[in-house]
């Protein structure tokens, strides 16, 4: 009973709850604004658009969440997305026989690039920002030297997967949710996942407790690479071709970091949740959908995104301030009958 309550608390820790409150607020605003131009926000077309724009960023942000949890960053994700898409489409070349080979090539390459970052950050102890910037640049150089424009062709099976929906829900979105659930299990119920929090929270303490510090960092980066690879496959499924610039054009590096931070994670590591990151992505997706309905200038979208990120993080920062109960009211009298021992209880 108690343990369940504790689990509930962890799942809906205060900052995650705030993320969803912000999301609900934005949905309400979106519905009202859509109504003012005589449109409905909740049409199945809109929902499909919203979920579609959630999917690719979702894969990337799940990986980014893990990387940020261990106190690192992954700036190489857009290039991995691009690489994965061109490798898959290239190997498949429109043939069904090459489906598995294409998928495997893309995912193995993506995971390996993540693993390289993992070794650089976890073992060689290079700052994550720098290490993944370097790795990203190398992949970028390879990509744009060897591929000019879209290339290859998806196997028919994969292309079909990209176009099937269950009602308004694209199958690729369902796959993204499945990956999210598996990753939730990983961070919440496996040692390696729990150790990601520990290493990000305080690497020295984690080491003293007997955790091999490089391991969670390595795994987080490898998974981030792998999930970016999956994002690339979704792009192939949707477009039918590989697109080297798919990741960079969408700006998945900064967008995924923004979504994770919007989801309540600390860039210093050790604090954050996948549900929070999902909330962050949905917030972005809602705003995009709304602005699509309102036919807002696309460049203005970025302004709105920027404003939302800053406001949200300012709100979280306020929340995180130490809640020392005031002993005296500003006027002078005893504030409340609050013995200091009760502060801990109240904070719950």
């Amino acid at each position, binding site marked *: 009973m*108690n*343990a369940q*309550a*504790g*689990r509930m*608390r*962890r799942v809906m820790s205060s900052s995650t709850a705030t993320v969803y409150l912000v999301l609900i607020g934005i949905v309400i605003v979106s519905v009202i604004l859509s109504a003012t131009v005589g449109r409905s926000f909740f049409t199945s077309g809109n929902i499909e658009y919203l979920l579609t724009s959630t999917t690719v960023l979702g894969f990337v942000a799940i990986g980014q969440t893990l990387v940020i949890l261990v106190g690192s960053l992954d700036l190489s994700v857009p290039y991995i997305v691009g690489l994965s898409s061109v490798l898959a489409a290239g190997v498949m070349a429109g043939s069904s026989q090459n489906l598995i080979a294409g998928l495997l090539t893309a995912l193995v390459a993506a995971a390996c690039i993540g693993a390289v970052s993992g070794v650089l950050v976890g073992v060689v102890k290079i700052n994550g920002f720098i290490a993944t910037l370097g790795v990203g640049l190398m992949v970028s150089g390879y990509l744009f030297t060897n591929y000019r424009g879209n290339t290859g062709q998806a196997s028919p099976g994969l292309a079909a997967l990209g176009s099937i929906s269950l009602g308004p829900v694209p199958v690729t979105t369902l796959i993204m949710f499945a990956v999210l659930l598996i990753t939730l*299990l990983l961070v919440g*119920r*496996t*040692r390696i996942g*729990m*150790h990601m*929090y*520990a290493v990000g*929270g*305080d690497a020295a*303490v*984690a*080491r*003293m*407790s*007997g*955790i091999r510090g490089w391991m969670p960092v390595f795994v987080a980066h490898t998974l981030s690479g792998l999930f970016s690879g999956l994002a690339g496959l979704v792009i192939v499924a949707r477009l039918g071709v590989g697109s080297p610039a798919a990741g960079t054009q969408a700006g998945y590096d900064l967008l995924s970091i923004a979504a994770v931070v919007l989801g309540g994670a600390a860039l210093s590591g*050790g*604090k954050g949740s996948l549900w929070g990151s999902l909330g962050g992505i949905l917030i972005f997706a809602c705003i995009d959908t709304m602005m699509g309905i309102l036919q807002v200038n696309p460049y203005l979208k970025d302004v709105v995104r920027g404003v939302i990120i800053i406001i949200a993080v300012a709100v979280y920062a306020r929340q995180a301030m130490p809640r*020392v109960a*005031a*002993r*005296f*009211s*500003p*006027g*002078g009298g*005893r*504030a409340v009958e609050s013995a*200091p021992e009760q502060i*801990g209880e109240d*904070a*719950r």
Partner: protein
Amino acid sequence: MNSVLQIRGLGKSFFGFPVLRGIDLDVRPGEVHGLVGENGAGKSTLMKILAGVYEPDAGTVTLDGKPVEFAHPLQAYAAGISTVFQEFNLISERTVAENIYMAREPRTLGLVSTAGMNRDTGELLASLGVTSIPPTRKVSDLSVAEQQIVEIAKALSFNARIISMDEPTAALAGHEVALLYSIIERLTARGVAILYVSHRLREIFDLCDRITVLKDGELVATAEASQLTETELVRLMVGRSISAFFPEKLEGTTVGDVALTLRSAGNTSVNAVDLRLREGEIVGMAGLQGAGRTEVLEGIAGVNPFTRGTVELLGHPLRLTSPRKAIRKRIAYITEDRKATGLSLNQSVMDNALAVVRAVTPLRSAVARQRANEILESLELSARGPDHEVKFLSGGNQQKVVLAKWLLTEPKVILLDEPTRGIDVGAKHALYTLMRTLAQAGNAILMVSSELPELIGMSDRIVVMHEGELVAELPGGSSEEQIVRAASGLTAAEPAA
């Protein structure tokens, strides 16, 4: 006598410089074994060897008759030696249970069993007589005392035969110390041996069965606590008898005009504080942790300004709404937490010493450096040079850098918050002497301290805080009992029962 731990000829050097030499030590099951010595005596190194943080260069460690060697902290834990360090090894964003079972979470079918982990943690805490800490609570929501209990529970969860504790009471208030004592009693009753490192000699005598004294990396003596007096112990530690541990007031020290006056000062943390500090006077401030002592200092220093009442400096009313304003009025505030608020650890001795002066005065850099060097020299700072980073200095030397930083501003009012926390006996004595010199020069000094002998030994007057209010003012030389009664909310005037 059978011992659970035998150490023979243990030695350790860093960069060719020996910090431990030929240590022979026996620890018996169920005893509290005190380990004392000045900073730099080798206590921490010895503890870290036992904890598996360092590997010794020479000698053997035998546990239950079997020689052991630890290459990693976990091996020490697994062997039955646990260490509770001064800086806790807890992840604040994780729960109590997750911290205790970190790196060895119980699993069923590959998944961590959180329910089992929480249940075991509850039982573990209950066995220490603690039921007020839910296993699912985040460590960041716990008090310092509760975090320490979690550390001890973690140590115990490895079936520790020996638990070594480094200054466990450093951050605890009086009633929390009592809880720690009772936990130690429960541990020893089970046959767990405690290796207890502390600078607080009172505790050493309260708790320990035997005491080992280290000095300059060598073992000076191991003796039954009952056969030692405090004076003898201090003499063994420093190799000289500090007859007058608290230096007398210097000749020519006169208590002059009122330097700082608080009238009904208050904010959301403290209320209606009336306080006068005179030039040349040392006022001590007593109280339990959380009584609002630091908050009074923060009010004066403009960190967390007073919102009610008035503050007067040398008769002139003023509003100190930021640290910058307070510094410009020559108020120096030496905070309790050197590492967090006193120093910029990655910067050099000189950059730290000049930090405040550079911020508030247009003094020429060369002049400031010259003066900083003079002050650091007069404080007998031992560092490799002014460009040495402060993170490499010992606690006592770091404190000297903080003091130099503030003395450079030529303060009139000096606020000291727990100035001797975590520094060794020699450095303490140097600080006391410095306080006397500053008083002689006409400074008004307000010192918050949790060490009663220090308050009694140094203060001309002692004011006592209780739940955010200043409840008593006692003359210097008052008894510990009077202070404790006032601090715990009993009226000081009430006759002792």
